[in-house]
């Protein structure tokens, strides 16, 4: 297990091919580039559309720039509309998702390590229960959670978004697999013989070894919370607490009502473009970590 995981990490990190020496195929590359266009063209459209005024959106061809370059003005409008509420939404989203992701990854790391390395009674049963919960649809939980939160006064607070996002059964599953492979028992024994307490071992030895798994769970919870729409839609009705998803959906609703007469469509388009930049940047910057974390998760399922 350990050796496979290491071998995987090496192979994934070096980026080498599974079968060295195989000849590259222009045909296959072209086919994949055609698919790539399908995946990137809508984003290109979004980029182009956010450089246009409302008039140019309707009057010019969607997939190329118009004569007026309205991007700076559009960005300014996005951040100044309704007393700068968009900046507020972005900060809310960042806050909700960073706290949720950090908390969820820490809970999953602690729990995954606990399930992987401690043979306490009920280990298999409890883990099975958590694993079964992966199938519980989160939206089926949203309505009862809303009712409970309404009774204890958590509706319309950041907690209403953060608390439900802390539970990530799949993250726990991934961390358990990762801990089994990445934390050698001999190292734990040596630390115990040295007289280190269990939590000191976790903090100083285990957490470092769990790094890629931790980043993987962190990033995927970050995406899930960043993209969350249903939960904040239910839980929040104060616009200054909205995450950017609910805020943009509200603006889009106003744009539908106003049609081509209003100036809301450029706000929606430019706001959409700005809102996806941070996550894409995070994935690109941290790709080494999450790719090796996922690879280890794929070893044994």
């Amino acid at each position: 297990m350990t050796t496979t995981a290491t071998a995987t990490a090496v192979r994934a990190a070096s980026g080498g091919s599974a079968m060295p020496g195989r000849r590259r195929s222009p045909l296959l590359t072209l086919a994949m580039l055609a698919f790539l266009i399908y995946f990137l063209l809508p984003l290109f459209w979004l980029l182009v559309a956010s450089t246009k005024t409302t008039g140019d959106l309707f009057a010019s061809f969607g997939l190329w720039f118009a004569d007026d370059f309205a991007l700076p003005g559009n960005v300014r409008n996005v951040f100044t509309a309704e007393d700068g509420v968009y900046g507020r939404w972005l900060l809310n989203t960042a806050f909700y998702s960073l706290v949720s992701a950090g908390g969820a990854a820490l809970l999953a790391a602690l729990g995954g390590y606990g399930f992987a390395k401690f043979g306490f009674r009920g280990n298999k049963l409890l883990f099975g229960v958590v694993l079964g919960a992966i199938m519980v649809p989160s939206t089926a939980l949203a309505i009862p959670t809303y009712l409970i939160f309404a009774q204890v006064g958590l509706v319309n607070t950041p907690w209403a978004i953060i608390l439900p996002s802390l539970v990530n059964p799949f993250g726990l599953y991934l961390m358990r697999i990762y801990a089994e492979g990445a934390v050698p028992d001999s190292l734990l024994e040596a630390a115990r013989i040295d007289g280190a307490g269990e939590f000191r071992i976790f903090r100083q030895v285990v957490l470092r070894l769990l790094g890629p798994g931790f980043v993987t769970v962190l990033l995927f919870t970050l995406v899930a919370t960043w993209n969350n729409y249903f939960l904040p839609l239910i839980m929040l009705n104060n616009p200054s607490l909205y995450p950017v998803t609910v805020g943009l959906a509200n603006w889009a609703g106003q744009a539908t009502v106003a049609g081509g007469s209003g100036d809301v469509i450029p706000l929606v388009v430019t706001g959409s473009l700005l809102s996806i930049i941070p996550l894409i940047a995070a994935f690109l910057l941290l790709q080494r970590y999450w790719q090796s974390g996922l690879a280890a998760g794929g070893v044994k399922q």
Partner: protein
Amino acid sequence: MSVTTAPRARRASARRAAAGYLFIAPFMVVFVAMLVVPLLYAGYLSLFREQLIGGTTFVGLDNYVRALTDERLLGGVLRVAEFFLIQVPLMLLLGLLFALALDSGMLWLSRFIRLGIFVPYAVPSVVAALMWGYLYGPEFGPIAQLAGTLGLPAPNLLGGDLMLGSLANIVTWEFAGYNMIILYAALRAIPSELYEAAAVDGAGAWRTAWSVKIPALRPALMMALIFSVIGSFQLFNEPQLMQRLAPNVIDNAYTPNLYAYSLAFTSQDLNYAAAVSFLLGVVIVVVSYTVQLAITRRRT
């Protein structure tokens, strides 16, 4: 000697078990509070009915009987089932083909292609739905513009006939790259001895893909499939946002989740909404298990 070590060893193992419980405790506490309790509460709520006269009364399984004969709910369930049967095979097949192509080592620019296909996963489904809504739209959508330039009638992508396909396209765009990455990660984890053995047997690229790679991907594919069952049956964001563009096509019961949402927050019928959510959860669990059973049985 052994007399003194035995109790000490026992004490050490008891202490270790206690540490194990402490490690899992934070997760389990939040798990119970945020998952188990709401689930039980939904089950409890679904057994009552609120009436203008007489207040809240216990009605047993009446809400479930009502749900099972509710044509709007059944219509929604059938619609997401159809969505699942069309969209998920397409998305997983694309993800599988991309992953195999990347892993074959036969591509130029493979890193660029991999990240480019994965990028839509980082786009919130709200943004994806808004963006595709504009792309589909008749006013300034490039699809309608292109059709107009060519003198062709623009397809009504927001009409009743094509809406499910238009939604399937959005979800495929969002998640094909994610599935590709999961499957690609699993492919990278195949031990190289298997490839060496296949090479010794004289297997070519196609043969290796078919007899070594795809069987090794079975667990990862199963996982992707289960997540797709969950995603399809609780479809909400995309239809909810498209509803404004096509209110006559997407009604409040277009998917079971839209229905539960409008029951709870528009009709204020919380008890019935809880029953609908609960039933939807049961449907998802049953479909997931059926899929798993079908696949494991075929293997043996």
